[in-house]
């Protein structure tokens, strides 16, 4: 059985090709092979949500997926949110305005979870937002400012 595999995927609209050991996790592949270090690793067992990225439009935990499983997939990471010219995405703007982050380590995971939520449920109410964010841990904020950030982002995206 081959121990390495060629992986072709699209990340943030760009095509990548790399070779990785079949046991390599997706987050390690993103960070080490593709140099996309914005996705952080918090627990390596799928609970804290810091490593959340989008795979084919759905939030996944890149620490408990293998890179090989993402072969042929379309991924989006935190690096894909803002426009290259320096314009933050409305979700990022809202987190900034509502102080939805302190140390910022869990933030990429929250942003990506929020991205999928607001794509699929632009009218999400507070309970739905909480339900969606309940798989992401933050130790700094106590979550209240994160909740306010997501509400603000939702209303801005609705009115765009």
């Amino acid at each position, binding site marked *: 059985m081959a121990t390495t595999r060629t992986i072709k995927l699209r990340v943030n609209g760009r095509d990548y090709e790399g070779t990785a050991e079949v046991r390599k996790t997706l987050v390690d592949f993103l960070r080490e092979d593709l140099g996309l270090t914005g996705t952080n690793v918090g627990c390596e067992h799928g609970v804290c949500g810091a490593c959340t990225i989008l795979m084919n439009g759905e939030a996944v935990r890149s620490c408990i997926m293998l890179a090989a499983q993402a072969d042929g997939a379309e991924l989006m990471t935190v690096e894909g949110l803002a426009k290259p010219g320096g314009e933050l995405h409305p979700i990022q703007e809202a987190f900034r305005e509502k102080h939805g982050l302190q140390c*910022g380590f869990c933030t990429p995971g929250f942003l990506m979870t929020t991205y999928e939520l607001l794509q699929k449920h632009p009218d999400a109410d507070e309970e739905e937002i909480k339900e969606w964010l309940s798989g992401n841990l933050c130790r700094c904020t106590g979550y*209240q400012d994160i909740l306010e950030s997501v509400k603000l982002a939702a209303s801005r995206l609705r009115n765009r």
Partner: protein
Amino acid sequence: MPKAEPKLPSELPITQPRYVGKDSPRMEDPLSLTGKVEYGNDIRTLGMLHAAILRSPHAHALIKSIDTSRAEKLPGVAAVLTGKEVKAWSRPVFGVPEGWTGYALAVEKTHWAGEPVAVVAASDRYIAEDALELIDVEYEPLEPVVDALKAGTGSSPCVLEGKDSNVAYDRRFVFGDVEGGMAGADLIVREQFRWHRSSGNPIETCVCIADWDPFTGMLTLRGGHRSPHLILPALVISLGVSSQQVRIVQSPLGGSFGVKTFARYVVLIALMAKKLGGRAVKWTEDRIEHLVGNSSHAWDRHYDCELALKRDGTITAMTMKLVDDLGAFAEWLAIGMLLKPLLCLGSCYHIANVDYSCKGVLTNKTPQGPLRAFGLPPHFWIIEQLIDIAAKKLGLEANEIRRRNFIRKDQFPYISPSGNVYDSGNYEGSLELLLDRSGYDRLRREQQQARAEGRLVGIGVASSVEPGLTGPPMLALASPRIFTRTSSPEGILVRFDGFGKIIAELGFPPGGQSQHSFVRQILADYFGVKLEDIQVLTVDSLSMQPSTGPISSSMAIALSGAVLGAAARLADKLKLVAAVMLEASADDVELFDGQFRVRGVPGKSLAAAAVTQFMMARPDLLPEGVDGNPQATYVWNPPDRTIPDEKGFGRYSVTAAGAQHLCMVEVDRETGQVKILKYVMVDDCGVRLNPSVVRGMLMGGMAHGVGAALLEEYVYDDQGQMLTSSYMDYLMPTIMEVPAAEEHEMCTPSPIAPLGVKGVGEGALHTTPATVLCAVNDALEPLGVRITEAPMTPLRIWRALQGAASH
């Protein structure tokens, strides 16, 4: 000291502060939001090796042999480090009191399940972990010491080699006339309490990258380290390295909460680097290692306490005896957490007579380490719980007892029985604000209604005091040899560049506390410039001014002092230059609204930027003694602290922030689950430099407190094996458990600290556990049961409910 340090924002040299005291966008955010922060784990250099650590599966065992030959042969493995080398190359890891720790790797025996036994460095992390499985260790299990109360009695095996006892620390502090206070009481409430261990659990784990060059002798450390001034002595002591040969480059931190000093692992990875002879090696702790092996657990305490009161609720005396299960070593500054209650023994109450004894005992568990709030949360819970118990017995409303014993507004500055000074406060006013805003009377009526319906609804009210800027003085009680100092220096360098822009250099990295932003706020108001005209950087340990960093609720106080001191020095220097340019006497020149102007001569003024550019361009015109360098440094230190005497009497801290919280809970009779129905807090931390940042810290501390009160616990079995070694079992609060709290501000400025601020970073973690735990017991009160063990997990509550049912 520069003259006239501003004691309030209104005393800054500006008509109206535009940034200080106001919500201001954080300069840290854009990088965090776009994934561009370079955390320790993001650093990769060419040829860097990766470390993995083999850990002991036994809590207590002799190491009969270690064979690393199979691991060393694995392709990609560069080296394996074992205890033999660590013993030859280093001294035991730092801890006070001295002599109660082991080496960074187990040598002859293991002391806890999870203790490092060997380290592998390999070309990647996967291979390093493969190699761990090829290391053959032969253990001979020994009887594990798991019960701290037995461990301290002498009938137990000893945890540490060469010791004939497990008691690392045992002190009693008596203030006032405790016997008299007891004798004069109408009621003595006695209760035993148990607080189980938990920890800070930042979402980023620890990362250390070490490179020890054999030719220059230079040891370079990168990664998420907190406070080089704390780590450096540990390195000098353990490694025998010369301090000027150590360069600590601090990456931003993904949270710390006390954890990121991790000196044991910095020493260990440095030793791995020594073995590698000049190749950099990175260790990134995984979460399970963090939970099991990071010496950062805190407060594993058994308390026996008494509160003595008069019939009218006046507290006449208090006794507290506590035994803390320190784990395998008295490592690092863990003992300090037993001593910190000396700073605020009576919380925000005047309790003149206090008998406090604390014993730190070794067991075969993970060693304790610093944790946010540094030992105080159990202390405040016990005081509030005893007040609630006493209120029932005396037939008084508990808040009546609180009011009767609060330190009154007119008693500040208040000298506590242990000599520590509370600078200012308004506890009664805060409580009234809390009761008013929460609708306390209505909540009590709702509770009665709920009880009538058979529901278990409870209300908790609790207070705390947060000593701001603590540190060395209390540690003198653990090690007078090392901590004969009253200083906690915080330094900064501020300079103008050749374009009239400002650059400030700090000695500690971003970690959520927003310090880069608030340095910018203060400098922008001081020199009348825009936020965007200021750059703030963290510099490495060889370049920085003396710096303590954001520990023990010190940052806003000490860093404000440093920034203001440097700004004043720089302004004084620029005045001399402006005087030349304005053809005036320097004594007549002042800085105001960003202009150097001549007093009494309207229209004659120069912007600070213009003065600095002139200063750099025209050395020929500068007054004698003024160089062409528009920069200043300043190192701020806390005023008036003292080294405590043998009885523990001393002035330990600078500010005292007060907090009053209220919580309403409902306990599910079937499951023991607690639901927080309402949470209200009033916090008085003086002037808030950036209100949304302060509010965010309070909310975060509250969430941390909910975890400590209801969820988080490191559970060990009787063999010393930890049963909660993943986030499946160690339960961190999520957005579902943390209530949407209301926060109301009370502002009693500090008369001592710069700008009237008070330390508040540890904040709500002081108060929330007490509030929630008292609320749960209030809910259970009709059943006649009380829980005196934290956290109050569903299982503990369910057991108490079963106990009540069988009565």
